[in-house]
């Protein structure tokens, strides 16, 4: 008897505890922070301002740490050190940086070069880094092409070293995967801090929905439709997954009436034509970030083949021609 009463009490106490620590009692906090050339913003639910503040501080410190690791603007970053020394000699790096490079090369291999973090010199030749876009002449392109190509990046997992084949002066550029990588690190950290609901956004191009706002099924994320005259958008609900978007709607230049996009086809060495926007949903933000470029560049059929056996990976590609390609996509945009 006594035992039953006390266990009832325990249940009641547990319920109370559950109530007081559940997301229902929590408030929403937001903060943003600029790093890696973009603005990271976090919305999260927490019991009070002090714990929200600590979680935010931890998260932004982590983003700065990843920036110190992977920035190709900061000469003191690990990636800059690799870019400087790998043309000369194999560079031993730490396991985290090495894993990042391995992941990048894995996607290059799988996508047969559609995704390639060595494409920087071409973008530079086209003037994309300094808002000075122009079509470069063929001889410049030919020279720069020599310095591009993921298959020239030699990774030796045994000793964690990176070298550029034949002493090529290559440039590893984290732009198409680094933000996703930083977001994943933040997600791991916030979970460890006990955060149950948060939306982490790297300038809107990669977002991760951790849990869901209290009493809801997911964080609403809006995907725009940039195709002419449609002006429509769809709202998706995301929970414990990420969404990354690549688009030509913001970074591009127009020369002789033609619009040139900053997303390149490494094979042709030229900006992509026709594709306006790609979006990828994947439980890993690193992967969705990389894949948003993969599906942007690859032929739709090949992209579908590549991702067919990843049921948790969804993609959507919208083209100026009006075409709409998708795989596993939870939204209805292609059906409209």
């Amino acid at each position: 008897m006594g035992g039953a009463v006390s266990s009832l009490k325990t249940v009641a106490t547990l319920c109370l505890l559950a109530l007081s620590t559940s997301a229902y009692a929590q408030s929403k906090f937001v903060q943003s922070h600029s790093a890696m050339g973009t603005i990271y913003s976090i919305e999260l639910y927490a019991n009070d301002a002090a714990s929200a503040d600590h979680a935010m501080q931890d998260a932004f410190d982590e983003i700065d740490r990843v920036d110190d690791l992977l920035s190709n603007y900061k000469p003191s970053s690990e990636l800059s050190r690799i870019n400087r020394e790998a043309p000369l000699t194999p560079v031993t790096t730490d396991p985290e940086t090495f894993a990042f490079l391995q992941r990048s090369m894995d996607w290059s291999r799988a996508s047969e070069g559609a995704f390639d973090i060595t494409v920087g010199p071409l973008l530079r030749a086209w003037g994309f880094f300094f808002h000075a876009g122009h079509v470069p002449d063929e001889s410049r392109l030919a020279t720069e092409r020599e310095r591009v190509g993921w298959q020239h990046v030699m990774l030796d997992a045994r000793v964690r070293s990176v070298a550029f084949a034949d002493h090529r002066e290559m440039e590893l550029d984290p732009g198409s995967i680094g933000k996703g990588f930083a977001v994943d690190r933040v997600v791991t950290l916030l979970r460890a801090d006990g955060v149950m609901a948060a939306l982490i956004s790297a300038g809107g191009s990669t977002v991760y929905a951790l849990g869901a706002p209290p009493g809801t099924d997911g964080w609403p994320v809006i995907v725009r439709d940039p195709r002419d005259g449609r002006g429509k958008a769809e709202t998706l609900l995301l929970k414990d997954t990420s969404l990354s978007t690549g688009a030509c709607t913001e970074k591009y230049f127009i020369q002789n009436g033609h619009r040139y996009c900053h997303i390149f086809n490494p094979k042709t060495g030229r900006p992509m034509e026709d594709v306006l926007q790609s979006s990828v949903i994947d439980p890993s933000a690193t992967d969705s970030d990389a894949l948003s470029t993969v599906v942007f560049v690859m032929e739709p059929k090949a992209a579908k083949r590549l991702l067919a056996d990843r049921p948790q990976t969804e993609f959507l590609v919208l083209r100026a021609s009006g075409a709409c390609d998708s795989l596993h996509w939870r939204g209805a945009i292609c059906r409209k």
Partner: protein
Amino acid sequence: MDRRLFLQGLSASAVAAGVLPVTAAAAEAQERSEADVAKQIAASKDSSPVRIGIIGPGSRGKELVRNLLRVPGVKIAAAADVYEPRFAQLNELCGYEVAAHKDFRALIDRKDLDAIVVATPLGLHATQVLPALKSGRHVYGEKTMAYTVEEARAIREASGSKALYQVGHQYRYSPWIRAAIARVQAGEIGDVTHIAGYWFRNNDWRRPVPADDPGGKLEHLINWRLYNQWSLGLIAELGSHHMDIANWIFGANPTAAMGSGSICRYHDGRETDDNVQVVLSYPQGKRFIFTSTTDNAKMGDQLWVYGSKGSLNLTLEDATFFYEPAKVKRVATGVEKGVTTSASYQAGGEMPYRGPGKPVELKDPEDATTIAIRAFIHCVRTGDRPIADAEVGYGSALCVVQADKARRERREVEVPA
């Protein structure tokens, strides 16, 4: 020449005379010192195995490990910590399993280590560094070298060519700080008499502690900075780097210290002050002042080096020179042209200079900790004496410990030799 002065690029006579070492001897010493540095920091061609044991793989310890793993041939062979979760974190970081010890003595007893890294709270440094050195192993010891002057002396004595000691004052390896200080020592901003260090932050300096913490044991272990048992507060944790740089620039250790501090903002049970000021007196009336607050981040972390001809601003990322307005100039005499009167008053002369400075231009400055760690492994392999050696560690420990004593006793205290 005294080894330490040599490494600081200063001639003993220049220091004794109280003049800045613009002499040929000093310039030569500086050059030799740069050659020494260059050798230590060069990318390593040697990838012979070096086995490291780490005591205290906490937040700094893990950063050191990350950098150690960037040096070819280095393996983290063992770790000691009293906080269990550290071992899993370390394994994840290394990508392999590191032998784990609950007691640091078991780590020191291992026979398979070439060097030991100590990155525990300050109050524990000497108890771990000393037996590690005595076991014949080279040691990378985090700053501040020790919690008391006696302990710092003991470490200085225990270290030598058989058991090298390098202190975690990585700014000694920072390319822009080295380049800037070399120019100061060559006389670029004249005679330096005054250095100011600001380290401002706007947060409570706390780290999250698991909710289940009977007796507040984890609170004391994780937030050790806030408690006197192991911590000398902001003076040690932040000020020690600045004090080391002041010692370096002045080419001497201070002779006296004043200190003050208060708990001004965070009345949360902490024991160390959240608002601290220090004045260190150097030979020939030179001064270093340090001020640190934890509820305003305007100044960030920066040093100002003031000389008769200009100033130098040092930060975590760069160095910038500023020059004093030109002084009187002798001009040719001739027929006076007359001057026009007006009613203007110019505050200009007393206004702070708000224009741009001249940044120290460096090709590809590398991260200071990455360099310091690579240099340490070079010394482990070659037996070369570290640039940030026990003398450097001892100098800044003297500043920290005595400044803290002055803060507690509310009086000026002597800094022993």
